[in-house]
């Protein structure tokens, strides 16, 4: 069992090393096989582990590989923790990851062989770090994975680094993440100073002894880390720009896995969050604000990937809302269903972009239904799932979060339903503009339109099935008793959550009905409106504000980037060029000047030399006889 656990994370690392070291001589087919094969084997091993974990009476396994940091009483081991929560994430990462690797073998086929191998090498490294993140048995290992996935995200966003804008997007993602990471790091040090340990079990068992203020501080700092990685207000702006990377990367890293790292971390630390009600409120408020902000921006975007990116930010907001109201299982459930349908939507978008020869603007698409039948059907299923139409997966997970939110505070529920309506609206605006109506692109593009090859459609179909039925893993108790398999599975880690305890079954039915009816009406409205008359004009008024992302980037530019640049410019021009260079050059000039003056002492006059000698001797005498104590 221990060997298997190590193998899960080791295999992607081996794939990374093989593809990375031999990328110059690696044929494309082999690079693809190594890249996706290692993940497939990892997935199979994870399934074996999962079967063990699923058994009744399973106790979490901790695998200690080697001591990582030992300093006085602080001992940090390089160890893995296998429990239902980490196993679920491992399944998502390796399962969805494998499908996306497979899809990539076809999507990236136009790249040259070394670049192709480089792509898979980064992707494997990403999976390795992501597994490290969810398998780590302490915060330090989690942090290693956390930083590693950030690095891979940077490398993959900037995969086409010859385009300067893409490189800038990569840097933006990295810098924004670093801001969050600082919060995480400070929380880590605070935990070490308070508890003398970073192991999950030790920290959680000692947590009740600490003061509420301390726990609140730590959880807020951890949450800052989560806002960076999981693209929440105020650090979300990197995620839409991260769409510069290849589409499968957007699917894997910036939709299905990496951005859910923050959710995982908060869910893992739920013991701490339960002790800090203020932090929970902050998480819920930030989550709900993000839902609305990102959803309104998504409504007016015309880039197929940008719409999906903002929808990801918005869906992550749902997960944080769930975490904030204490519905950890539901949030993790939404992570899972979101991984399915968002990966599906991104891969579908990739298939569309592939068919449109790189065109991403939905205004030049339209009527793709008859050219891309498989992509169309799977994309539609994905849209239904994210819009929360029963019985697709998004319905179950989103409604469970909304119910839990209602239980805490009806305002959260209203915000969540408004977000759900917007989601349904923009997703079907996207769907109708892309797939319905008449084709609006050029003749050449129309001629080129074709359904993607099997390596791309099969993962789409697999994900579409998962997105459709994935929700049945966590059917709310209100439908049938003891049907919430996921809640039961995660119960030992996250605690059983029972919304029925405080709100009646009829209220729950009503809440569910309201959100479904509203979402469905939005679907019908958007479908009808945009299939006939797509929105092609430049938006005006408030629509322009939404299309321009509420000018958040500009505000950041004006409030943070410009002052920082001005300050850096001041440091560069005044401190660096004036003070520091002045001191350094001044020292040199002083030595040169004084040497030039001293040179005149060498006059060649013997008398002068002797005089100095005598003065020196007299000085020595004076020192020797009078000044020495």
């Amino acid at each position, binding site marked *: 069992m221990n060997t298997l656990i190590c193998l899960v994370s080791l295999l992607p690392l081996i794939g990374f090393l093989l593809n990375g070291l031999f990328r110059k001589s690696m044929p494309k087919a082999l690079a693809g096989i190594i890249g996706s094969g290692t993940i497939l084997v990892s997935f199979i091993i994870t399934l074996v582990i999962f079967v063990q974990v699923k058994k009744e009476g399973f106790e979490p396994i901790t695998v200690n590989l080697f001591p990582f940091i030992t300093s006085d009483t602080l001992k940090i081991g390089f160890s893995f923790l296998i429990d239902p929560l980490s196993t679920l994430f491992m399944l998502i990462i390796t399962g969805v990851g494998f499908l996306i690797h497979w899809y990539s073998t076809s999507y990236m086929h136009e790249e040259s062989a070394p670049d192709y191998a480089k792509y898979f090498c980064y992707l494997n490294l990403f999976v390795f770090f992501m597994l490290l993140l969810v398998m780590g048995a302490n915060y330090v290992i989690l942090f290693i994975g956390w930083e590693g996935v950030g690095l891979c995200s940077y490398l993959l966003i900037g995969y086409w680094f010859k385009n300067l804008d893409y490189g800038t997007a990569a840097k933006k993602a990295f810098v924004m993440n670093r801001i969050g990471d600082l919060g995480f790091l400070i929380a880590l040090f605070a935990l070490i100073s308070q508890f003398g340990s970073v192991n999950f079990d030790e920290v959680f068992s000692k947590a009740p002894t600490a003061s509420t203020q301390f726990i609140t501080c730590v959880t807020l700092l951890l949450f800052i880390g989560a806002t960076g990685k999981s693209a929440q207000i105020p650090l979300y702006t990197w995620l839409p720009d991260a769409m510069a990377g290849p589409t499968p990367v957007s699917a894997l890293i910036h939709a299905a896995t990496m951005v859910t790292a923050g959710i995982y971390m908060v869910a893992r630390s739920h013991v701490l969050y339960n002790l800090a009600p203020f932090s929970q409120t902050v998480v819920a408020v930030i989550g709900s604000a993000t839902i609305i902000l990102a959803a309104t921006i998504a409504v007016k975007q015309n880039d197929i990937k940008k719409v999906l990116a903002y929808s990801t930010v918005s869906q992550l907001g749902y997960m944080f809302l769930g975490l904030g109201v204490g519905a950890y299982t539901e949030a993790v459930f939404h992570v899972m269903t979101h991984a399915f349908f968002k990966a599906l939507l991104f891969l579908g978008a990739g298939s569309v972009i592939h068919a449109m020869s790189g065109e991403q603007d939905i205004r030049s698409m339209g009527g793709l239904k008859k050219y891309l039948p498989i992509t169309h059907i799977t994309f539609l299923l994905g849209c239904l799932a994210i819009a929360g139409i029963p019985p697709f997966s998004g319905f179950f997970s989103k409604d469970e979060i909304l119910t839990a939110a209602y239980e805490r505070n009806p305002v959260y529920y209203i915000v969540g339903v408004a977000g759900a309506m917007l989601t349904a609206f923009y997703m079907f605006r996207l769907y109708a503009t892309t797939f319905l109506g008449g084709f609006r692109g050029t003749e050449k593009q129309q001629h080129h339109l074709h359904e993607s090859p099997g390596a791309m459609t099969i993962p789409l179909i697999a994900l579409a099935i998962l997105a459709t039925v994935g929700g049945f893993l966590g059917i709310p108790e209100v439908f049938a008793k003891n049907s919430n398999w996921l809640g039961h599975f995660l119960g030992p880690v996250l605690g059983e959550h029972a919304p029925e305890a405080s709100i009646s079954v009829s209220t729950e039915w009503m809440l569910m009905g309201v959100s479904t009816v509203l979402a469905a009406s939005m679907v019908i409205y958007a479908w009808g409106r945009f299939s006939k008359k797509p929105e092609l004009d430049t938006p005006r008024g408030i629509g322009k504000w939404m299309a321009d992302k509420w000018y958040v980037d500009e505000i950041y530019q004006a409030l943070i980037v410009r002052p920082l640049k001005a300050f850096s410019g001041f440091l560069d021009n005044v401190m660096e060029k004036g003070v520091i260079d002045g001191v350094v050059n001044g020292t040199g000039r002083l030595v040169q000047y004084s040497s030039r003056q001293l040179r005149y002492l*060498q*006059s*060649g*006059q*013997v*008398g002068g030399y*002797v*005089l100095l000698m005598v003065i020196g001797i007299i000085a020595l005498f004076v020192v020797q006889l009078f000044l020495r104590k």
Partner: protein
Amino acid sequence: MPINYYIFLAIALFCIGVAGVLTRRNAIIIFMCVELMLNAVNLLLIAFSKMHHAEVATDPNAGINGQIFVFFIMVVAAAEVSVGLAIIAMLYRNTHSVDVNFLNRLKH
């Protein structure tokens, strides 16, 4: 006779030598002043070795090494004088002058 007189005499001689070296420009006079300083030191050495040695009361030969030093100094001074005078003679042949202030080209 107390040793003080010898010391004062030696200091006076030495200071005259130093002043001579500092003020005179004639190389030969400077040379003589250097000799004066050396001999002032010789005088001190002898005076101390003969009169101020701790064991001079019991051992008539005590402090003999001070006097031996003096011989060394005299020998070295003689050698130095022969070399120095030769240099001065050569200088004079070349420049028709023994003025040290005129001989400042060593700085280059």
